[in-house]
């Protein structure tokens, strides 16, 4: 059976893509950002997922204002990089997993998530930048990817709660897929930023850090954040963070936080990144060992508390 083993969240700032494409990642300004992903790339090399589901948003590339799907699931065999005005990014074509994607579409629609099935789509920096951050710049992406494009451009985007519940429906779909696949889900976008209007440049690190804390410990709380609060506290474009809740909903209720990175700024944006792992149920050896330590600590903590109170 397929199962979701981990979730990754990451900002998708376009200049990060430009810095990679123009080989500027060693420049001090950018190195500060990219160095935060070195451990993540190592983690990804060890984890070697069979498939990634990447939740992201399109930025007037594949979708203009002619058609605005709230949730668009990429069911094609491949997704070429989009031309965002400077020619397509020099990254590999993203190979899909049409069979698993079709299975997810069928399952989540019957679970009352009326997603749009997309069989032809280009993918922009919203998807390819997080791929670079976690996989580096290989000649071919190491695994198939199912893109899930979420509308966060035209207000209102889906609510955080809706996103969280879609994540759950995706988990259910993946777990019912007969092939033995290990799946990692990406939530991308954010963190706090505003790039439009006189308030552009807004950053709210306090909000971001609390969001990261709660993403691990109390995602239900995050699922209740109203849109107004995202826009007021984290900037008009900070509302992208609802996409992280799809990733979180796809994970188990209790997860282990493997890694976290946060820095300000990358261009106009606060960069946030987190890796969350489901607690091992017959996971690979490396994953098992990592998950075992906090479990032991928790057991020890429980024992201690018990003694004090008895």
């Amino acid at each position: 059976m397929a199962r979701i083993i981990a979730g990754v969240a990451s900002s998708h700032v376009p200049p990060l893509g430009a810095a990679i494409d123009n080989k500027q990642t060693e420049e001090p300004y950018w190195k500060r950002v990219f160095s935060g992903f070195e451990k993540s790339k190592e983690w990804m090399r060890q984890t070697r997922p069979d498939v990634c589901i990447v939740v992201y948003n399109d930025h007037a590339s594949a979708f203009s204002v002619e058609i605005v799907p709230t949730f668009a699931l990429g069911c094609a065999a491949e997704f070429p990089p989009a031309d965002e005005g400077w020619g397509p990014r020099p990254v590999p074509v993203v190979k899909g997993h049409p069979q698993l994607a079709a299975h997810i579409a069928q399952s989540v629609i019957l679970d009352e998530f009326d997603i749009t099935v997309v069989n032809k789509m280009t993918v922009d920096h919203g998807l390819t930048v997080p791929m670079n951050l976690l996989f580096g710049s290989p000649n071919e992406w190491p695994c198939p990817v199912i893109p899930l494009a979420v509308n966060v451009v035209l207000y209102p985007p889906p609510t955080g709660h809706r996103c969280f519940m879609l994540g759950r429906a995706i988990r259910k779909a993946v777990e019912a897929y007969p092939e033995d696949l290990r799946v990692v889900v990406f939530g991308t976008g954010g963190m706090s930023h505003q790039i439009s209007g006189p308030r552009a440049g807004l950053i709210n690190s306090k909000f971001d850090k609390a969001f990261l804390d709660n993403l691990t410990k109390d995602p239900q709380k995050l699922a209740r954040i109203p849109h107004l609060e995202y826009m007021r506290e984290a900037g008009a474009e900070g509302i992208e963070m609802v996409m992280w809740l799809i990733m979180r909903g796809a994970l188990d209720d209790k997860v282990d936080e493997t890694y976290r990175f946060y820095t300000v700024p990358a261009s106009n944006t606060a960069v946030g990144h987190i890796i969350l792992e489901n607690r091992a149920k017959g996971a690979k050896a490396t994953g098992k060992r990592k998950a075992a330590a906090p479990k032991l600590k928790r057991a020890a903590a429980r024992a201690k508390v018990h003694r004090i109170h008895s």
Partner: protein
Amino acid sequence: MAREQHDYDDIPGTFVFDQERSRQGYGINMFCMSLMADENRKAFKANEAEYLKKFNLTPEQTDAVLKRDYNRMLELGGNIYFTAKLGATDGHSFRHLAAVMTGSTQEHYASMMLAGGRSVEGNRSRSGKFDKPGRVAARPAKKASTPKARKGKAAKPKAKTRAKKSKK
């Protein structure tokens, strides 16, 4: 009919691209989208006013585009991901657009970002009714982090808000 008022209209310096603005700004955004093709960029540059006629803009929208008034474009239904394509057609970086929209210079904007960006304190609410952080996310998780971090989070916001207010 005047624009319907929404709770988010209270956020200062922000034009939320909502359904009404999307309806109103369809022409602006489709015009900007057309600039993805090189031949269209050339046609636009050759005669801007003439090129814009294809997109059924209102006189106010046409004026905003011709004057490169990016805030006005947003107010009249343009969306930043689309209007950025106009900026790119003019050969401008996004930083140029940010400076124009914030009434700043590129250097000043860049140094503000390096210093941690624009603070949310004093930038939450036009009416002043919502000057405090929101309820849900501004607090750490119940079992969050170290006691030190918790202490810091509980104590700081009020002090900062006061400091900003007194400055103004």
